[in-house]
């Protein structure tokens, strides 16, 4: 275990250079030669190396923050949050990128907790959805499901009714619109085969139906269950029923899952 200890100790000394002597002294599992080597690095040199090693890690996290979000966050604030994340999650990696970025963005969303930062949290959820979009899956057997599920080219988002306007403003580099932080609106976020992202505002009943689809029930069964728990939707039953065909035709609903 000496090699692991050596590596743990060296990285820990780089993460906390001001405590390096203490760290070295408290590590038992080192050979005398390793101990001499680690002790031989001068405090000044350790500080310098530490700065670049920490900077590399922080900037790796900063780099994967989607440009939309980065454009709204002051660089020093984002860096401070990345530093915080790097220290709290010393084993967090960026492989596989989409999955690991989601965890890091979850952390950001939790850190951006002020009331007037709702637009940033909405944007993070939007970006996390986008990172899941995929048009490519290694061929694998497909298992039939009892009912529909959302395809991996789309996802559900709950955000402010002003979210579409916010996105427009960011894309067109205009000043941000007034943002309703309290009302929530359901959207279907999708990516077409040309890789363009679209946003479809959903009737709240439809949002619930889509949210309930898990492959275990048919559309009609899901719809019945949702109408039962929300009787005020009964009047919309037939309209909601018709959505199924449209969603299937767009490729957003499917009745199977890939089993690798």
């Amino acid at each position: 275990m000496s090699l692991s200890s050596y590596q743990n100790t060296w990285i820990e000394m780089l993460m906390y250079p001001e405590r390096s002597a203490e760290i070295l002294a408290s590590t038992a599992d080192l050979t005398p030669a390793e101990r001499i080597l680690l002790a031989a690095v001068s405090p000044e040199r350790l500080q310098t190396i530490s700065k670049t090693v920490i900077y590399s890690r922080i900037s790796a996290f900063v780099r994967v923050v989607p440009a939309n979000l980065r454009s709204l966050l002051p660089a020093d604030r984002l860096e401070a949050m990345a530093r915080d994340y790097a220290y709290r999650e010393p084993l967090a990696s960026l492989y596989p990128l989409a999955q690991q970025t989601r965890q890091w963005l979850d952390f950001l969303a939790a850190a951006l907790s002020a009331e007037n930062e709702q637009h940033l949290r909405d944007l993070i959820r939007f970006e996390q959805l986008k990172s899941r979009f995929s048009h490519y899956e290694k061929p694998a057997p497909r298992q039939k499901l009892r009912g529909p599920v959302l395809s991996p080219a789309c996802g559900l988002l709950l955000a402010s009714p002003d979210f579409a306007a916010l996105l427009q403003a960011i894309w067109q580099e205009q000043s941000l619109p007034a943002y309703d932080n309290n009302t929530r609106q359901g959207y279907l976020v999708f990516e077409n085969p040309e890789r363009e992202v679209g946003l479809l505002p959903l009737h709240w009943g439809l949002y619930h139906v889509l949210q309930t689809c898990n492959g275990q029930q048919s559309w009609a069964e899901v719809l019945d269950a949702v109408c039962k728990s929300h009787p005020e939707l009964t009047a919309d039953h037939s309209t909601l029923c018709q959505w199924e065909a449209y969603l299937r035709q767009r490729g957003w609903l499917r009745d199977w899952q890939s089993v690798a």
Partner: protein
Amino acid sequence: MLLSDLPIDRALLSAACPWIPTGPVLDLGAGHGQISELLQAYGFPVTAVDEDTRALAAVQAAHPELQVVECDLRQFEIAPEHWAAIVCLNVTPFLPQADVEALLMHLAAGLKPGGVLIFSGFHADDPGCAYLMAEDAHGQPAPTGQVSLALLPRFFSDWPVWFAFEGPVEDDHPPQGPHRHVLSQWIIQKPEVPLATINWSALPRLGTGMGWRAALHEEILASEAIEFLEIMTDDHHSPELDQRLLALRQRYTLVPHGVELSPGTPGGASEAYLKDVARIVARCDSPWWSDHLCYTHSPRYRTHSLNPLPPGEESLATVLSNLKRARQNIPRPLLLENPAYYAAVSPDPLQEAAFFKQIVESADCGILLDVANLMGNAYNLGLDPYTYFDALPAERIVQLHLAGGRLLEEVLFDTHDRPIWQETWELLRYVLQHSDVRAVSLEWDDNYEVPARILEEVQALRRVQRQFGLRL
């Protein structure tokens, strides 16, 4: 073998593209060319074969870039180990059983290692099997040829099966209208050939290149100095980026260079990571791939830095075991790069050179010598770069990296955003005179404001490389 509930469809074929290695694709029995079109549009050069003159003429008119061959499938000679993928969908009903089995043998032989077979044919339960749909060599009607998944062990015994389906499929076309077929289908991959002992002097000479960076894409394409491109393996794990690599590969030799192999970490990289890299290496169809002799993480911490490994028995055993797994997953020559050192990891730097030599010789790896790192390490650790170089096995040095760095608080960092140092140029000349490198590339990772200046650096590298003995 896990059976699919659903048959092959267009979406499945389209989604499969990133896992088809680089190379030509054959569509046997292309019919109206829908599959040929899909694969060609993705970026593969496709040959469409069919005996239906009219259908083929229409396919060719719509897609002049497709190679179209009009003949009986039995007349088409499938060159051995040539095809990256062969698609053969429902042509077997028109072949007698003996010809079906001969075809399966030809398909197996025609794929290159790692190549993918996408196949569908009538199962014995298909209603068509009751008829004489096939034609023998003399044009006489013969019983419909049949296939089943039971044939897989006979013709494709050790091929990984990605997808297998056997069962009824609804169909609807004239003259029958709606009707049912019973199909056997599979998507399987020809096994890669394990890597034998590498003849390092037989590797191709790639000349001068640079790391591909999105910010420099246009300038790179326009530059005559660039003879090959290095791509960052770890920027290309998403299959969504595969088409970009495939397009670059049409024009350049690509060499993947990674930073996350971490051969010095006990346990090393995950199997999933190695499989991802294998896909990227297959896409680049590169003569070698590379990463660093370092560790990026320990059991408790992960960095995004390449930390040098202390020489020693445990390091050696760890690296050799990790490199063995890498080689099993990625059967192409691996080059290890010397990382930048900012603090000593052994009392004598020459011990590191000896360690490097021992590793590349024991693991049958090559060396990607970063000349700028060597110069920087010399500066930072006070070693003599020429003596260090002389201690390395010159015959294993396959590729060189050049870059500029920055001095921060007395330490020289490999920042890759400055012109190459004068001392590094001198060391480069020495290295070129005393080794037989196959490729030299510039690394440039920031300060893209004056692209012409960056490409001039590549041009200068090319001149030096030509002057000091690179034979192309």
